């Protein structure tokens, strides 16, 4: 009881409140601006937190983390440019809703789904932290490979009706990820002697180029007068979320939150993988799968609850094992250490009051996220009042600055422009973009998992069938592939060209 009281007293500090709010605002803004990335914001904030109390310092970092994971959806919805990799799956439906004049509805659902996902994830962390910690250690290289292959079948799911072009885009994504340093030997590969390519294609340049720059190029073709969007009122009739829509989205949110909770627990996967898995599963289970990519509210809800549901349970491996699950929690580990808080089993015994404070902080941050998100929405929706002719030059400028600030490399700005041209032609010829990014994100997971597993098994393929979790995912992958192939086979001719 004492532990509970001292822990909660630490949260009642106004400084904690201030830092959470500051962190959330910074996170949402950084997340929403294409090009600026959240890990960099956390790294810059880290030294500042050293002079604060542990809880106040972590409040700021947690705020940036939660806000940043959500912030990417704002630009994805409003301008079809995902601010973070995790928001890529949100872009298709979000931007379609905006084009239909329902930006307010999309923004609201994104916030609600994100906050619900976060809340479920926080509760999973608080209630089941120790029991689900063992899950974090169930995923070795073999399981990572199998999960990667399963997730890759999403390329097929999302390409239904446009299968050949979708698979080509997915393959290009897989190939693009192979440039740079060989992840196992450390040798340069596919760099063609170009020094700048030794880092591979910068993900940030790829995403911003293929979404933002291509959009700006497409804009240049349209006459500026027809490109005006007109403002959208957040609280107008057509932007209200109806009861029927809630009924449609609620199962998607619940299911995706669960996926996010599980993905968050496993180190090394991250919110983008959770978003894609949730979105793909949402489409498979949807009664109207062809609506996905054309403004499906449940598609948006799936992606957004999926990626934000990672933010709570990602602390499970950190707190129980001292293993950070991604770059952001790796930086936060530094904040724990500097205050003498050593993650691991002992933390729960010796620093019970801190654990209580940290759990309370997670809930506080989620609640404040909702409040700040509501306020921010009214501000961000004003973007729809700006005519596209003005908006896209500004986005282009932001993108160039953002990519340069993040990588400090002019080469990556050119790479971004190059991918912009690629994205433009993909749009013109009807190639979907999401499969390319899925391939790019999953490629290292699959390659590293496969090669590590083959070393562990000393060259025997049996390992993929004798380990139950791996075999299970590979079986699921087979089933999904066959189901997609069957549906595609039976699909009537004259496919509908969709932009994903």
């Amino acid at each position, binding site marked *: 009881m004492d532990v509970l009281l001292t822990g909660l007293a630490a949260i009642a500090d106004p400084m904690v409140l201030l830092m959470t709010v500051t962190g959330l605002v910074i996170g949402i803004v950084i997340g929403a601006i294409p090009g600026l990335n959240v890990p960099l914001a956390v790294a810059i904030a880290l030294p500042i937190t050293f002079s604060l109390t542990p809880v106040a310092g972590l409040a700021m970092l947690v705020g940036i983390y939660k806000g940043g994971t959500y912030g990417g959806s704002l630009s994805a919805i409003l301008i079809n440019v995902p601010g973070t990799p995790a928001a890529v799956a949100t872009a298709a439906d979000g931007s379609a809703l905006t084009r239909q004049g329902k930006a307010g509805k999309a923004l609201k659902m994104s916030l609600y789904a994100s906050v619900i996902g976060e809340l479920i994830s926080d509760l999973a962390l608080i209630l089941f932290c120790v029991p689900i910690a063992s899950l974090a*250690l169930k995923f*070795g290289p073999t399981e990572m490979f199998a999960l990667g292959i399963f997730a890759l079948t999403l390329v097929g799911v999302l390409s239904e009706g446009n299968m050949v072009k979708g698979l080509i885009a997915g393959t290009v994504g897989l190939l693009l990820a192979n440039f740079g340093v060989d992840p196992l030997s450390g040798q340069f590969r596919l760099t063609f002697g170009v020094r700048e390519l030794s880092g*591979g294609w910068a993900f940030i340049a790829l995403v911003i180029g293929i979404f933002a720059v291509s959009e700006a190029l497409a804009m240049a073709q349209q006459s500026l007068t027809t490109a005006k969007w007109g403002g959208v009122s957040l609280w107008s009739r057509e932007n209200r979320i109806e009861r029927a829509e809630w009924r449609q989205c609620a199962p998607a949110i619940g299911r995706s939150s669960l996926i996010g909770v599980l993905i968050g627990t496993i180190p090394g996967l991250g919110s983008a993988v959770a978003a894609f898995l949730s979105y793909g599963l949402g489409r498979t289970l949807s009664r109207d799968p062809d609506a996905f990519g054309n403004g499906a509210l449940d598609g948006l809800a799936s992606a957004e609850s999926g990626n934000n549901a990672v933010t709570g349970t990602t602390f499970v491996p950190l707190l129980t094992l001292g293993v*950070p699950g991604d770059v952001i929690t*790796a930086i936060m580990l530094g904040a724990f250490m500097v205050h003498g808080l*050593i993650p691991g089993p002992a933390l729960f015994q010796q620093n019970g009051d801190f654990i209580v404070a940290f759990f309370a902080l997670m809930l506080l941050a989620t609640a404040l996220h909702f409040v700040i998100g509501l306020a921010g929405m009214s501000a961000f929706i004003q973007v729809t009042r700006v005519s596209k002719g003005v908006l896209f030059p500004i986005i282009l400028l932001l993108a160039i600055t953002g990519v340069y600030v993040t990588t*400090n490399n002019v080469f990556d700005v050119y790479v971004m422009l190059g991918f912009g041209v690629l994205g433009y032609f993909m749009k013109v010829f009807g190639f979907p973009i999401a499969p390319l990014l899925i391939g790019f994100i999953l490629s290292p997971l699959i390659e590293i998992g496969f090669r590590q597993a083959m070393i562990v098994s000393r060259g025997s393929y049996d390992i993929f069938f004798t380990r139950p979790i791996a075999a299970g995912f590979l079986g699921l992958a087979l089933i999904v592939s066959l189901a997609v192939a069957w549906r595609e086979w039976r699909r009537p001719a004259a496919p509908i060209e969709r932009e994903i």
Partner: protein
Amino acid sequence: MPKFRTMLRTVAAAAMVFGLAEAGAAQDYPSKPIQMIVTWNAGGSTDVLARLLAEPLGKELGVPVAVVNRAGGGGSLGTMAVLDAPKDGYTVLATSSGNHVLTPLKNDVGYTYDDFIPIGQLVAASILLVVREDSPWQTLDDLVADVKANPGKYNFGAVPSVMPHLTLQGLVDNAGLDLVLIPQQGGAPGATALLNGTIDLMPANAATVASNLKGGTMRGLAVFSEERDPAFPDIPTAAEQGYEVYGSPFVGLAVAKGTPDEAVETLSAALEAVANDPAFQEQVLKTASAITYLPAEEFGKVWARDWNNFKPMLQK
């Protein structure tokens, strides 16, 4: 009135000429913000150290020091960026074993350690040999005996060709072991692999596994330094246990060759002052490791020593 204007113009011109002359004079270094290039991503151990250093170093120099991350290519992109920048002392390299010695030995990146002037070493990190807390091995001898009895059975994890890997390779050669490397993507993924049983042992930077060691999920069998690490006084050195194997990655500051002497001296003096400040030492101790400051000349000797030490391993 016109007379006044002429006068203003003259004054302005004079001020400009004077100002330019001032900026050109080396004794006024530094007169503008300094860039400190980190060749790794934000949040890594070198980056955290550089960010901790930036503020007090800036105070000491009287101008702001800004940390800039130029990651990629095993640290070679950021290192080359320092060589490409004007050699005026306003671009400083936060350099580490990886980008300074190992990457140029491994790949043709267009520079060697000798293209730089040392400013000073800040940290020489400890490399620890760690196992899971439930591992049967209590000492290095236990491990060596078991591995010798079961050649090719046990896996170790490390990022290929970086300091922890090369150090363990030294032990493998020294003791005649047969271990299988499962290449890892970084310290944290390596720690996960150790805890989930993919690998049986791991050489790691002390900072990477500090939370696991103090939290009780891992046990350290040896440290590959000449002295025990003050943060882990219970972990004996490899040499104490009869294995003369050493490995210790450095982090320090350097500038490109051709930088004026005045700038090098000013930077060296400022770094020495910061490194000897107890408040700074305490802060670094909490996050990374103990400050092991070496003045410029000594730091340069470390470069040459490591270069010659690892050359035969990496340039096959």
